[in-house]
């Protein structure tokens, strides 16, 4: 069922809140938190199974974001680097679960675990769609998920996956072409 969406303030207002937060205004930061909580919490929760751990990670992400705001040196836009922080926190969390870690492996071939809640009331077409998603590469699948299901924009997806926005557009374009092809090809 659709979640209750907290309306995010329009961009100029959000920018002003972020600026106030960078000057130490905690109340302004709460509003920034409310605006980003839905996406960040979904991003973490769908990749980290344990609820308490997910909540701890989300808190850590926003604390780190606050620290960077106070330090005042944030060249990129807030929503791209908060997703970079989120990505790093999730990766670090995966590291604690592994006995040996190849850093390059984790960072370049990040295959996020999937803890998305079970699809409910999926009709035939949707189930077929799920089957077809498996045929995409993991990058393509991830971009489709982040764009269609988690409602991230390209900048946020780029930060979350550690890629450029140009690459994201290419991946998405290719993924949609493939999905169309597979949906037409597969038996009804």
């Amino acid at each position: 069922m659709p979640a209750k969406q907290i309306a995010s303030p329009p961009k100029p207002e959000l920018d002003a809140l972020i600026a106030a937060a960078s000057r130490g205004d905690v109340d302004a930061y709460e509003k920034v938190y409310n605006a980003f909580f839905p996406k960040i919490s979904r991003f973490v929760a769908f990749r980290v199974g344990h609820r308490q751990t997910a909540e701890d990670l989300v808190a850590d992400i926003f604390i780190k974001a606050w620290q960077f705001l106070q330090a005042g040196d944030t060249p990129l836009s807030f929503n791209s680097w908060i997703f970079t922080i989120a990505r790093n926190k999730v990766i670090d969390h995966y590291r604690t679960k592994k006995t040996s870690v190849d850093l390059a492996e984790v960072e370049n071939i990040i295959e996020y675990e999937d803890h998305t809640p079970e699809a409910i009331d999926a009709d035939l077409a949707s189930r077929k769609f799920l089957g077809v998603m498996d045929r995409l590469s993991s990058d393509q699948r991830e971009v489709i998920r982040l764009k269609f299901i988690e409602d991230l924009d390209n900048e946020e997806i780029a930060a979350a996956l550690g890629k450029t926005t140009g690459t994201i557009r290419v991946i998405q374009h290719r993924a949609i072409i493939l999905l169309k092809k597979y949906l037409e090809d597969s038996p009804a």
Partner: protein
Amino acid sequence: MAISKEDILDDCIRRLNAGGSIAGCLAHYPHVASLKDDLRIASYAIRIYRIQDSGLDRSAVWGDIRRRILDSKTRSNRGSVSSSIFNLRLPKAMFGIATFVLAIGLVQTTAAAASDSMPGETLYPVKRTMEKIQLTLTIDDVQKAELQMEHARTRLTEAKKIIEANPQQKTTVIKKTLEDLADTTAKAVQQSADNKDLLKKVVELTDNQQAVLAGIEGMTTGDTKEAVISSLDSAQVTKTAAEMNLAKLQDQENRDQASSPATSTPESIKGAQTITPSSTTPSTTRTYIGDKPTSTDDTLNKFGETGATTTDPIIEQASTSTAPTTTAIINLR
């Protein structure tokens, strides 16, 4: 201004996610080639999952965030500097030295990456070394005790996270972390020996340790479980020691007030104290740059106040503190 097809698709996906319809999008953007097919695909995904709640408690998490932000603000108002690079809190006067010391080699960038590392990770030893440096550079006794408590809290969080993530594995790492927890807590008690406020904080700290450890004990088995139970015992012992200490101090205070109410001053009370419960030896755990006297009376009088002038001689002795404060380097780890 021409909008690209991808931007149109993005906009329509946003609308669909917000409850709009394909027909509505197509009406908004007529004559866009293959938009209908693309939206059909998007709608399958959206229909299956619909933007679901993460299931996480937004206000509870905010409560945690707010408390930690305000805690760090309180600490920096007390005359220490909160540096987001290192996550260190040092007395302001120490920051020059700390910057010089830590600017050696590649430590700056590594330090930022290390500050979040967990036991078992490559950079974890760096994190622990940084904590030791923090301790060495902290002169003020109260701050030192509080820092040790902070480190104890970190050890507890580390143990909790590892156990929650992997209750059956990493026994060696868990055991070591819990041992360090007990060790640091014991040091914090020693450091707090004659200070009621600090002792109360120790009691709170060990209370919390017991609560958290009891919570995760159920997830563990075998050796790990034994280690957790042993930590619970340690926490209890430490808590009892702190409570006894507190009671003695309170007793002494009451007696002093009864005998000479007009003349008791904080210094004379401290001077009169020779509380040395068997588990604590305050003078031997304190280390100072430049070998300052270790007698309890002297140190409490001289170093007991936050922001005392005693930091100046320390700076002169170090004689390398002219390095300017470096600007923050943001390492997004």
